[in-house]
């Protein structure tokens, strides 16, 4: 049901919407580039039209420049003022986005071309929302919109107090799918799904606060992800307690002097006896079939029928049957159970060799027949074990006052003891699922000395790491511990922190890295390697690679590069650079907070943060 139509030219689309009185509109487009192009194209054909709001827009934006000078040089300045349209997406600077939001709210724009990111967070409604794609771009490729995402978009349609009706308009486009838009509009809202996970920061903080793994686990067990866990565990615990009480009551009533633990031991013995009986064959037939399954294989000659006198050479086996060649050369297939005898030698199944095989068997006869198993032999071992268990079971009852009565009672209570056992196993399994990721984190932290696993304690080192609220605390912690911040200038400090902060998959161009930055990053790569190796050892998906281009961009920025030049050289969208530096700055501020334990690094980080967070960043 995909609609493989070309997109409507933006100017045409806006003219059409205008003709139906459907402006202002937010037009959702799949990529940042399409948004920028659409705004420029639309503005080009609209600049001739009469629009009294042009002066108002110019005044408004000039007023805004006083606060945020960086927007004056924006290449879309004219697009907005003369065209009355704008492009809005994560590639733009925060200040630029803000001015667009304000213009839109003030009714000074006719249209915004936006990517889906605008749908979340910022609040600027319009009369109409235009959707051109039923898919959205995500880090893992194109994905179909979810009901919630479409709901976020349609949530912008219709301004409270300004519109009596809001519109969602599906427009043609190569990835448009009107059917799926209809489905999504009709769909109930998505359920809220938990994304709860173990992090180093949470683990360190919780352990330091509560002083034991058990209490940290209690917190983890309360997460929304495990919301079904608590009632289930509660129920299992109740069942267990109830069965325990029943057993105690029965023992007391019968005046059998046995503790509960004895009964549970008895249950274990009984259960293992049962398992053994289950796996040992009960009849000669079962035992004989087990044997045939094992010994009948291609190349062996078998005797068919009870007497086993008619011979056949097995050519292939299925679980319970064989394909074979008979002495007269005809092929046959028959079930295993028709076999009465099996001969030991293994022959070639090649058609020309078949006669030799039969000749040899006739020659040597019964002497090469495999001995059939005897029932007594196979059962002997198991029976020994079972006898042993039976003796132990008797021991239990001997300690009690009246043997026969006690034995009877124990067997009658055994199902209840089994239930207790089952409840405990399930509780353990449920708890292990919740706790495992935290235990993995704890072992990694233990390896690097931030946590003492055996004593369930956060170490001195772990205490300051708990205060370091950055995305990858271990990388920061290890860099600090190994003295990577020692004797750095702000340029290298910015590069180092950018490398540990940046998304691995965003590219910031090929700005040249100075030698001293390279050698610092090589040291940092070793830190990252050591950390991810230990994470891998503990079963944690190792963290991504470090981002050299981000480090280069940050080094240049900290060294005083000019914004416009840096944007050009890094081939980056301004918004992406602002985000990189702002996250770098925030991480630096976190390190700057470690005045007591890392005075020198903290001081350096504070100085660097101030430089990195200069205008237009923040």
């Amino acid at each position: 049901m995909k609609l493989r139509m070309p997109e409507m030219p933006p100017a045409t689309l806006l003219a059409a919407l205008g003709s139906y009185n459907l402006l202002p509109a937010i037009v959702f487009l799949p990529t940042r580039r399409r948004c920028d192009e659409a705004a420029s194209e639309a503005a080009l054909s609209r600049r001739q039209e009469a629009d009294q709001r042009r002066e108002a827009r110019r005044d408004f934006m000039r007023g805004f420049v006083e606060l945020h000078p960086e927007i004056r040089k924006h290449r879309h300045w004219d697009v907005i003022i003369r065209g009355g349209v704008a492009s809005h997406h994560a590639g733009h600077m925060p200040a630029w986005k803000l001015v667009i939001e304000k213009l839109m709210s003030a009714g000074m724009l006719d249209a915004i071309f936006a990517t889906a990111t605008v749908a979340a967070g910022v609040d600027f409604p319009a009369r109409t929302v235009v959707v051109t794609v039923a898919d959205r771009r995500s880090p893992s490729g194109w994905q179909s919109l979810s009901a919630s995402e479409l709901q976020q978009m349609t949530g912008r349609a219709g301004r409270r107090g300004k519109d009596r009706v809001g519109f969602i308009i599906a427009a043609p486009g190569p990835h448009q799918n009107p059917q799926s838009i209809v489905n999504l509009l009709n769909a109930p809202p998505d359920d809220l799904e938990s994304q709860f996970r173990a992090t180093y920061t949470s683990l360190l903080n919780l352990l330091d606060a509560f002083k034991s793994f058990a209490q940290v686990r209690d917190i983890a067990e309360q997460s929304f992800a495990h919301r079904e866990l608590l009632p289930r565990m509660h129920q299992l615990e109740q069942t267990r307690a109830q069965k325990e009480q029943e057993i105690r009551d029965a023992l007391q009533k019968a005046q059998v002097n046995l503790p509960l633990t004895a009964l549970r031991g008895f249950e274990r013995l009984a259960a293992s006896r049962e398992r053994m009986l289950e796996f040992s064959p009960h009849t000669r037939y079962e035992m004989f079939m087990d044997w045939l399954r094992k010994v009948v294989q291609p190349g062996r000659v078998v005797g068919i029928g009870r007497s086993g006198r008619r011979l056949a050479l097995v050519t292939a086996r299925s679980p319970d049957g064989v394909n074979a060649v008979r002495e007269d050369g005809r092929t046959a297939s028959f079930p295993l159970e028709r076999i009465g005898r099996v001969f030991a030698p293994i022959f070639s199944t090649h058609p020309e060799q078949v006669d030799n095989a039969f000749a040899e068997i006739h020659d040597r006869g019964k002497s090469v027949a495999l001995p059939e198993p005897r029932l007594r032999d196979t059962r002997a071992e198991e029976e020994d074990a079972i006898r042993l268990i039976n003796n132990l079971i008797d021991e239990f009852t001997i300690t009690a006052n009246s043997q026969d009565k006690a034995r009877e009672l124990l067997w009658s209570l055994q199902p209840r003891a089994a239930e207790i056992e089952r409840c405990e196993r399930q509780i353990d399994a449920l708890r292990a699922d919740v706790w495992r990721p935290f235990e993995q984190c704890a072992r990694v932290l233990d390896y690097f000395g931030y946590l003492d696993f055996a004593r369930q304690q956060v170490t001195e080192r772990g205490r300051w790491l708990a205060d370091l609220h950055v995305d990858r605390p271990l990388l920061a912690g290890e860099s600090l511990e190994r003295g990577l911040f020692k004797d750095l200038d702000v340029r290298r400090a910015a590069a180092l922190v950018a490398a540990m902060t940046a998304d691995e998959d965003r590219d910031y161009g090929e700005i040249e890295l100075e030698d001293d930055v390279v050698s610092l990053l090589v040291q940092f790569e070793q830190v990252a390697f050591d950390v991810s190796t230990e994470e891998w050892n503990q079963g944690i998906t190792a963290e991504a690679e470090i981002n050299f281009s981000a480090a280069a961009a940050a080094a240049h920025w900290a060294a005083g590069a000019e914004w416009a030049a840096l944007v050009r050289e890094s081939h980056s969208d301004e918004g992406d650079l602002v985000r990189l530096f702002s996250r770098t700055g925030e991480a630096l501020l976190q390190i700057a907070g470690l005045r007591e334990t890392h005075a020198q690094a903290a001081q350096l980080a504070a100085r660097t943060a101030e430089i990195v967070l200069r205008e237009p960043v923040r």
Partner: protein
Amino acid sequence: MRRSRDDHRGRRPHRPRDDRRDERAKPAHTHDDRGIPAGTGNYGRELRNLLSGIGAPKPEPFKPDPFQLEALAALEFEDVLVTAPTGSGKTWIAREEIRRLLAAGKRAWYTTPLKALTNSKYAEFAEEFGAKQVGILTGDRKENSQAPLIVGTTEIYRNQLFDALRGGEQVQADLVVLDEAHYLADEDRGHVWEEAIILTPPRIRLLLLSATIGNAGEFAGWIAEVRGVNCGVVTRPGARPVPLRAAFIMPDKRLIPLVDHGKLNPEIAGMIEEQDRQRGRGERGKWGKGRGSRY
């Protein structure tokens, strides 16, 4: 020539079958440039229906919605989860409750998932309650952090909870508002919301503002379970504050309803089928070019 013949043939399947409807279809291609149908035929009525009521409502003095009042009333004795679409006035509830608390000399925390949102809420509240009453805490901004009302990112609030637990102190708040609480489902950061909910002491009232979600009852039930305080659910009935209509804009700029009796408008479905058929024959239909001109 060939293309035009194919296109012509191609129109037939989704052309309305009976004659009456056929007439209905034609005038739609002759509407003037302003898009308002020139004819007075049935199609004109369909478009008129689609667009009826468009425009601004009469200005009315602000009157809170019943769901807003319901949420405020519930907050007096329990935690509250409000689910309503954007723009339907969830913030109003938080603002009124904060106003009441500040007047009583109490303190509140207002968390948002985004720095931009935090900044705009800070500006909004500073204007509403006076700059002295409001502080802001984000990763790179810390102003007036002792103010009775703190606006900040959810991460910073969660970090304060950690600090309080480790230091054996109390978080200074009587109310915590978690705006955009559906961020709990965010892959990277969602766990922070859960930690915030689990670790907020039960003595602090929680107000969660969320987009519409499918399992609001389950969510509130969980909050009540982990906090030991009842959590009411207040949902805006009728879902949207401004009604929504769905339309499809045809390549010839005609506007038609997207939905017909709950299903995809058959005219659109027919157009797609026809397009797929042409594609199957190796003919690429040039739908983008004015179809109206062929009539």
